[in-house]
């Protein structure tokens, strides 16, 4: 290093990094988590369905997503979503989709496959007798699922779901490949503009470490508390 570590560049750009970049990252993480868990639960119910067509379709989707690198899936959706949008509204030309929307759809659909496997394990961890008891009381499939099985499955799987969310939080940094301005993207832009790559990337690593480590520790504590109650 010629000129020593320049802390000033971090201070100068902190507003941009956190207000623009980190907001993008955290919003994307939160929304993709909610969407991913929603679709993941639906996929899990499909995979466990007694209708073979449903379970095969869900299984194929989940295995496809889990066999592909996330970077490739990001590229796929980045180019595919405008065409799907055009097809949905019947337009002739591909519609313009903002980078945030494109990322949100990508991560929701990709993480749904991983949340699906977690929820499947969760649903299978509920005792069979619970389902029979539900049916014996005259509840239908949706009532049994919604009121008896899923609440227990969620509780059993809460630590695993949250751990997957920490992974999702780290994965969102890959939106760099489509030049979206997430936390890493913002830092990369400042780094290249001011030629402060060492400072910016070290700072980014430290920030990601603090947040991920903090969240993981919280999940571990939660896991211990749940373990005591049961």
């Amino acid at each position, binding site marked *: *290093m010629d000129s020593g570590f320049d802390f000033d560049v971090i201070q100068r750009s902190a507003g941009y990094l956190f207000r623009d970049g980190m907001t993008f990252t955290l919003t994307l993480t939160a929304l993709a988590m909610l969407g991913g868990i929603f679709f993941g639960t639906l996929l899990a119910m499909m995979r466990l369905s007694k209708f073979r067509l449903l379970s095969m379709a869900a299984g194929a989707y989940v295995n*496809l997503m*889990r*066999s*592909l*690198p*996330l*970077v*490739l899936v990001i*590229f*796929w959706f980045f*180019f*595919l979503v405008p*065409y799907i949008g*055009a*097809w949905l509204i019947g337009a*002739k*030309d*591909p519609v313009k989709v903002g980078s945030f929307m494109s990322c949100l759809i990508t991560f929701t659909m990709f993480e749904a496959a*991983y949340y699906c*496997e977690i929820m499947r*394990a969760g649903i299978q961890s509920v005792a069979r007798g619970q389902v029979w008891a539900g049916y014996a009381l005259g509840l239908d499939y949706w009532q049994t699922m919604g009121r008896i099985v899923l609440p227990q499955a969620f509780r059993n799987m809460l630590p*695993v779901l949250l*751990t*997957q969310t920490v*992974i999702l939080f*780290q*994965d969102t*940094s*890959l939106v*760099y*490949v489509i030049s979206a301005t997430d936390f*890493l993207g913002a830092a*990369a832009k400042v780094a290249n503009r001011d030629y402060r*790559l*060492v400072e910016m*990337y*070290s700072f*980014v*690593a430290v920030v*990601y*470490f603090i947040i*991920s*480590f903090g969240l*993981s520790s919280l999940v571990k504590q939660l896991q211990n508390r749940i373990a005591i109650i049961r």
Partner: protein
Amino acid sequence: MNYNWDWGVFLAAEPGGTGTYLKYLVVGLGWTLATALAAWGIALAIGSVVGTLRTTPYKWVVRLGNAYVEIFRNVPLIVQMFLWFFVVPELLPKGLGDWVKQMAPPWGSYLPAVMCLGLYTSVRVAEQVKAGIGSLSRGQGMAGTALGLSLGQCYRYVLLPQAFRIVLPPLTSEFMNVIKNSSVALTIGLLELTGRARAMQEFSFKVFEAFAAATVIYLLTNLLVVYGMRALERKVRVPGLISASAPAGGH
């Protein structure tokens, strides 16, 4: 959909002059595998050592091992990639750093990518190895000690031979993760499979053909790995144990 499909594009010449686009992508698969295999070697070596050390009775060794795992697990892969590519050469002694920076492509990207993926994956291997040793019955270690084996001998002759055979199935999914994760190396300029599909899309404007080809190649590679590893698993399975495979998390 208003899109002109043209599957013949794979037989067209790519602008770099190395042959057809098909060959261009297959060479990309070669780089993906070369990166993944080299990183896998590093990951297995370091991961086994760190995982084993974390089960020893020495408190400080365990703490150091835990710190190593936490550091590499809590920083996103792409950020680690940038650290290896942009930051590490600056921190090395000047001569060595310049040598790394001036390496001819693709080696200038390949070396940091392999180091990054290797260490990133090593903590996952370490977790599996630690879990494998932990899953052995406590009596195994005690019996070893009762026979007068030293701690090192006990690991060498009693615990590790069993643990490695137990952790092989979960390690399969880690190996597939390395193959998938090697695609992140495109961000530091390594033209592996995903990077070449992206480049092909930029040269030929055939977006979906390029990505469809990459998708098919990844799926075939996965199938090959799964079948190969299954054969290996059958060979090394510990007789008398129900082979339980841990659920594959992360990616």
